[in-house]
């Protein structure tokens, strides 16, 4: 199972500002009544994109015509906190996003996204604000995330990013979905299990 080597992601970006944007906001639980991940993209940020009382479309950034076609999501601190639901990064990816730039991520969300080959990179707040400002003044701004050089280039500017080394390594070397490697280790798994009394029995 050869996986793509994800060394960079380029595209237009959309700022979804705020800290602690939780998984229930990303994909409300009622949309998880499904046995596949198909169609989840449609419900991304559903309850903030539609007025709960009138059902009308709100001015949420994802609804704004100028940001249509954006493939990079900008946000704040502790993005993806809450539930372990992979439905959250699945919805983001299925909506069309290829990467996220935020100040920080919740642990489980970060791992789930990486496994889907959707890089979550970390940047300083003021740097995210610079990208957001450029995108706001010209939504057509091309934003390029470089996972090798660990920088984001946009509108003639460049800012530093960081990413957990294990995730960066997995993405740029095309091993972000670990299943192949884990399967290779099955003989060793059986050996380890033999040493643990509760599994040996």
């Amino acid at each position, binding site marked *: 199972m050869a996986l793509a080597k994800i060394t960079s992601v380029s595209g237009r970006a959309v700022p979804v500002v*705020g*800290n*602690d944007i*939780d998984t*229930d*906001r990303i994909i*409300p*639980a*009622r949309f*998880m*009544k*499904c*046995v*596949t*991940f198909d169609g989840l993209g449609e419900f991304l940020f559903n*309850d*903030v994109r539609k007025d*709960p*009382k009138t059902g009308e479309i709100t001015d949420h950034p994802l609804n704004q015509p100028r940001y249509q076609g954006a493939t990079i999501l900008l946000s704040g*601190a*502790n993005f993806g*906190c*809450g539930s*372990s*639901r*992979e*439905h959250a*990064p699945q919805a983001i990816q299925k909506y069309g996003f290829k990467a996220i730039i935020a100040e*920080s*991520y*919740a*642990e*489980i969300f970060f*791992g*789930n996204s990486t*496994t*889907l080959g959707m890089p979550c990179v970390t940047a300083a707040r003021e740097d995210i604000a610079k990208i957001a400002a450029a995108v706001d003044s010209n939504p057509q701004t091309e934003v390029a995330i470089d996972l090798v050089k660990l920088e984001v280039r946009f509108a003639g500017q460049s800012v530093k990013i960081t990413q*957990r*080394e*294990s*995730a960066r390594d*997995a993405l740029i070397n095309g*091993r972000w*979905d*670990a*299943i192949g*490697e*884990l*399967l290779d*280790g*099955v003989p*060793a*798994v059986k050996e*380890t*299990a033999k*040493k*643990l*009394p*509760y*599994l040996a029995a």
Partner: protein
Amino acid sequence: MPSPQSLFQKVWDAHTVRQLANGQTQLLIGTHLIHEVTSPQAFGMLRDLKLPVLMPHRTFATVDHIVPTNELVEPYKDNLAQAMMDELRKNTKEFGITFFDRATGKQGIVHIVGPEQGITQPGTTIACGDSHTSTHGAFGAIAFGIGTSQVRDVLATQTMALGQLKVRRIEVNGKLRPGVYAKDVILHIIRLLGVNGGTGYAYEYAGSTFDGFTMEERMTVCNMSIEGGARVGYVNPDETTFAYLKGRPYSPTGAAWDAAVASRKSFASDPGCHYDDVVKIDAASIAPTVTWGINPGQGISIVENIPSPETATSADDKAGIIEALAYMKLPAGAPIKGTKIDVAFLGSCTNGRLSDFREVAKYLKGRKVAAGVKAIAVPGSQIVALQCEKEGIDKVLAEAGFEWRAAGCSMCLAMNPDKLIGDQLCASSSNRNFKGRQGSPTGRTVLMSPVMVAAAAVTGTVADAREVFAVN
């Protein structure tokens, strides 16, 4: 002498299969728990890859999120819920996995069933596609909430790829004041350390308060570790742990039990081991705590006032307060006590256990739920329900005006028909107060202990249970 180690380190080392190319560890997961929401796609992936389940006897299934609590006969009115139920039955049958279906009498919330059955054991690794898997850490297990791709990984290889966590010891010492519960301890910890304070950490809960806690109290605290950002939370195993586990269906018996106790005790953190951080809290400083905002870190004691933007400690804090108050429709600076409630919810993997209902029944006897308040009590498992019914707890609650329901996650996340309507405000013993969490996109949640939910139910307002029930 080997250098002293934490429980986390010992369990991690014992379950390490090998290092992976990216520096992560291939970690053996001894016990895998699954439910209907996050597993069907994983089984689909297995089929696509034509892979078997490596150790089907180490995965256990239950159904909890979508089950209606007032509808026992299938097919359920909700076709989607029925489809998920059918899918889990099909998958567990096809792959030879034990399923605690409703007909077994052992069904319930996955984090209540595991300990109840003795599947959860000290010194083991546990994974489940649910962030509240940290609950099982109460037994000295290292338990991870995982996504669906990792559910696939565990099914196929009984392992997953993980990076090491740092360990923060949170020591709570002393006796809790009357009317203060384990729920208040964890709400207090999250308020103190923040909703992302635990990112990258496992929380080791310790100190004399935890030593004195029952297993159910320890579970309540470990359950909400993830609300503080910590994927893993645990308590070192001790006599209380083994007394709880002895004789449970999946606990070893006879000589094997004695051997298991000896081996599992050895996983407890060694005195003098290294911690990446230590936090100490005086139990007496903790008051009954309630949330006022839209994340579990936005909590105050019941005698405090709702924060106002002017009292914010940072620009972030200020923005958070403004957003939360707008959503919660609460007046800045006013007492939280007296806030009108519409719904009272008792249950969830945080507080849906026997001791929770026993405690609540003690105070609800002879009381009535306030007019206009919808009150529901949802046992965490069929076994909890049965025991409550044997003890007459269901009757006490019903006489007070609570609807006594069947086991499930229910209104904690409202994937079943139990939902808030419109802007309703719910006094809830659950774990998350996110926007829209309880099923209405504008519904409001105030988290609190079960006894505080009972006090809110009878007064129709967020209330101080110590006053309402004359606790002192």
